[in-house]
């Protein structure tokens, strides 16, 4: 995949940098940037406003792009988009919009591997409604204790919001368990798929969750756009969070009436160029093939697993077979100091609690180092980093 770096102006302009923080964000290949620039240079308006030529083009572009993205996730039939700035905003929108579905004594179930963005909105909702927030516990070795489900009163569970893939160790939720849960209760199932979308295929219809939350920038799309892909039926039950122009059908009378479907979530002027660019990112991934991306991830992960000397590196357990990341501690060196050392040698890695303090706490860590890879990464990148740490550790001794 290393030759794919040529697709990215960022890599061409920063040849010295070894980027190993794909789990935080990915870069846009040229065709995605071009798509956005093209939209701004040639169309420039929002959709769902005027009736002019540009508005028509915008509307067509919006619908076309949406179709491509939904198609990419096999979600054309039963799902629609609720757009937001990023996955965090989308999770907030979904949580707030479901406020009326939650009552005192209801249960919101989460996974143990949640990012702050999938905990804090629900924690707030739980506090406001009197619902009760609970996480599936972790077993030793990083697996989820799915049997905890049996101890819960299923009738009480109203929302299940879980990360499909962890941003700490790539732990992947058991989709068979999800299916069983779906048959076992009437809860709304929400999956945070942020760490999956850039790495392997996501078939929304097949999994059958009620909503999937993602950011375009984790899959080589633009920043400032994310989405909740939500079942059309559920959208009808959700209340709009932001109100204003574009989402209202009639603002006169005793109370305003909202637009139907997902449009009730589209308040204010919208950058169609971002949706267009995101659809271009889908095309880019399709052109490479998700299987090829996954295979590349797997090869790097296999290498890393074998290569990292356990006397120097303590790897966080629980990763899946095609992991696109590895979190670890460098023995006796604080992650911050590892990051500084890496930075001096032009490595871009992630250290800290990865916005998942509760996960780290469950795993018994306070702070970690993380390498994550994707299109443009190669075994040589991780090898160079490992060598650097080994050298530094030996030097310190």
């Amino acid at each position: 995949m290393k030759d794919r770096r040529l697709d990215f102006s960022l890599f061409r302009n920063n040849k010295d940098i070894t980027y190993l923080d794909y789990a935080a964000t990915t870069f846009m290949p040229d065709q995605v940037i071009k798509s956005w620039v093209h939209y701004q240079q040639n169309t420039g308006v929002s959709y769902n406003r005027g009736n002019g030529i540009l508005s028509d083009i915008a509307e067509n572009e919006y619908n076309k792009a949406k179709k491509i993205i939904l198609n990419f996730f096999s979600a054309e039939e039963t799902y629609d988009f609720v757009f937001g700035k990023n996955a965090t905003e989308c999770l907030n929108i979904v949580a707030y919009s479901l406020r009326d579905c939650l009552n005192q004594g209801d249960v919101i179930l989460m996974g143990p591997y949640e990012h702050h963005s999938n905990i804090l909105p629900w924690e707030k909702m739980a506090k406001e409604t009197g619902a009760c927030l609970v996480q599936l516990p972790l077993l030793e070795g990083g697996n989820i204790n799915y049997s905890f489900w049996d101890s819960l009163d299923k009738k009480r569970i109203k929302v299940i919001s879980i990360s499909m893939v962890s941003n700490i160790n790539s732990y992947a939720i058991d989709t068979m368990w999800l299916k069983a849960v779906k048959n076992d209760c009437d809860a709304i199932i929400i999956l945070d798929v942020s760490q999956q979308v850039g790495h392997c295929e996501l078939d929304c219809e097949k999994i059958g969750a009620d909503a999937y939350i993602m950011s375009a920038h984790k899959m080589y799309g633009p920043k400032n756009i994310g989405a909740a892909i939500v079942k059309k039926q559920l959208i009808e039950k959700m209340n709009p969070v932001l109100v204003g122009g574009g989402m209202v059908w009639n603002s006169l009378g005793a109370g305003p009436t909202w637009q139907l479907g997902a449009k009730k979530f589209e308040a204010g002027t919208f950058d169609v160029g971002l949706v267009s660019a995101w659809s271009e990112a889908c095309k880019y991934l399709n052109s490479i093939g998700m299987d090829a991306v996954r295979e590349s991830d797997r090869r790097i992960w296999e290498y890393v697993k074998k290569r990292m000397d356990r006397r120097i590196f303590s790897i966080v357990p629980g990763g899946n077979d095609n992991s696109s990341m590895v979190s670890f501690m460098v023995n006796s060196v604080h992650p911050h100091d590892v990051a500084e050392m890496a930075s001096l040698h032009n490595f871009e890695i992630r250290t800290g609690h990865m916005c998942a303090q509760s996960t780290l706490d469950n795993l018994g860590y306070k702070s970690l180092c993380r390498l994550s890879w994707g299109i443009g990464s190669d075994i040589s990148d991780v090898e160079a980093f490992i060598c650097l740490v080994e050298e530094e550790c030996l030097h310190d001794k």
Partner: protein
Amino acid sequence: MINKSHLLWAPEIIKESNGIACGDTLSISAYRDDDKLYFCYSGEACKVAVKVADYLIDSFSGKEEREVFKCVKRLRFGQYTEEEQWISMLAVKRKSCVDSPVGLLYEILSENNSCEIDTREQSVLACDACVNTKPINWKPEKGDKRITGLQAIARELKIMDDSIESEIQRLGLCILSEYQQAYFSDRLANVSDKDFKLIKKLRLAVLLFNNAKQYNLTLDKRIEELAIKQIVSLNVANEEIRIVNAYIKESNLRIDAVKGGKTNRYYPEGCYRTHMDFDYLAADFDDAFKFISYLVNERHFKLVIGGSVPFSLKALLNTDKEEVLTGHIHLEKILQNRYQVVVDVNMGGFPLGRTGIIQCNKAEKIELEDLICITVSHLFKHEHAFMKDINDLYYLLKSPELNQNLLSEKLEKYKLVNLFKVAYFFLEKELQLNTKINIESTVEFSQKRIDSWPMSRKSHFYIKARDMFELNKKQFGEYVGLKETINQICGGQGEISTKKYYELNHIMNERVYLYPIVIFNRYVNNLRSEELINIDSSMFRREHILILPIGLFLIQNSRYSEIGRETLNTEIEEIMNTLGIDTSLCNLNYVMKARKDTWLY
């Protein structure tokens, strides 16, 4: 890791900071002495934070607080002296790493914490293990507000009973009459804030939730919410307890669960029995210490400041009139950042009132009949009876596994016959229990008291007091037994001297509170020195300090005179030197501030 040479013993203030994104966990421990502030840092932090922390300790620890405050304010605003320019250079790229130790020190300087041990239950004959702990006050007297003197007690008894409490308590019983069901609907469909607080305090939420379900009655939404949270919290705690129980089994420790942790299984399906505390009974002190060390060092349970009971020991006579030592420790852990799990370890036996003890067979596991005895004992432990204990007793006695003869024997052995009779009378009358147990009571309580128990606190007190006198009479004779009972009721100084445990405490039945000073990061069983006074097999004392395989504890009882900081530090250093212990054996992360936001009871 922060340099351990900077360690500071028995801090009065502990604060922890979690970096916003960095994941550092830096703690500051401090105490004030003579207008001076002494502090040190511990935890996992990067080189920059460690360097700044070390600088702060070297420059400011032990200095006049006012002077330190001035300097720390200056550092917070990024104003550095010439010698501190290196900090400004570090702050360019790693500002949050520099700010973290400075911020913690600033927090401590801006606050001022008071320090004392305080009683939680206030009325006469309340449980003496139920005390809140705050940072140490260096005074031997408990700063409690317990009612003392016969006149004051008489005054209290007059106002003890509350008709609202009695009415609400009754609705928590596991069987309700038709009249009670109708009253339930009227009373509990919507409750006032005051009643809600009372229900929480009486631990009634889940009991009422069970009844609402069982009889299809409407229950106030807040009570339902609280009950669900307690049930979910218990489910989460059970996962931790499963691991803990597996350790007990694998390690062959003579420790068994008692109370809620064990009685649930006798409840019918669909009927919840929640509890936050998981009580264990360790027949053997050494096993208890191994268990405590495991909980603190491997499962990260903590001793709590500002919340619940600390660690205490008490010498008393068992039913064979042998002097025995009992102990109680309370450890907490926060799960999922929102649920509290509590482990209470009772050592040597389970307390029976102020002066009695239930000692189960060391070699055997706790049987159903022991559980019943412990439940009866607990029923009369606190200042009022809890309905959950009554329901427990009802379901335990209804169990087909019950051996009536064995129960009779155990009730006799533990001198619980009188209290059991009172409880049984109620179960028979109110819940139509018809399990026949052959026992003869030795005390005739007035029918008025029996009839009004358990709803009347006054009757609860009279029965407890009368039974305690009976027990004391048997243990110490009529005159001394009466005096001891009066002392216990009036909160006076006991007069019966200990023999075997004299070096721990001169007074029988008086609780000794232990303040943690050093906690070892593993169980240490070879602490021996001629300079130490041996109290029990693995328990030693030197001056004010108790040396246990889990750590060093400051003894707080009525015998010792006030101890100052300097004396304490000297004593600790001397013990460490005598035993050849260094700081590598210390767990620095053994205490936490109470997380009241997680309290569901």
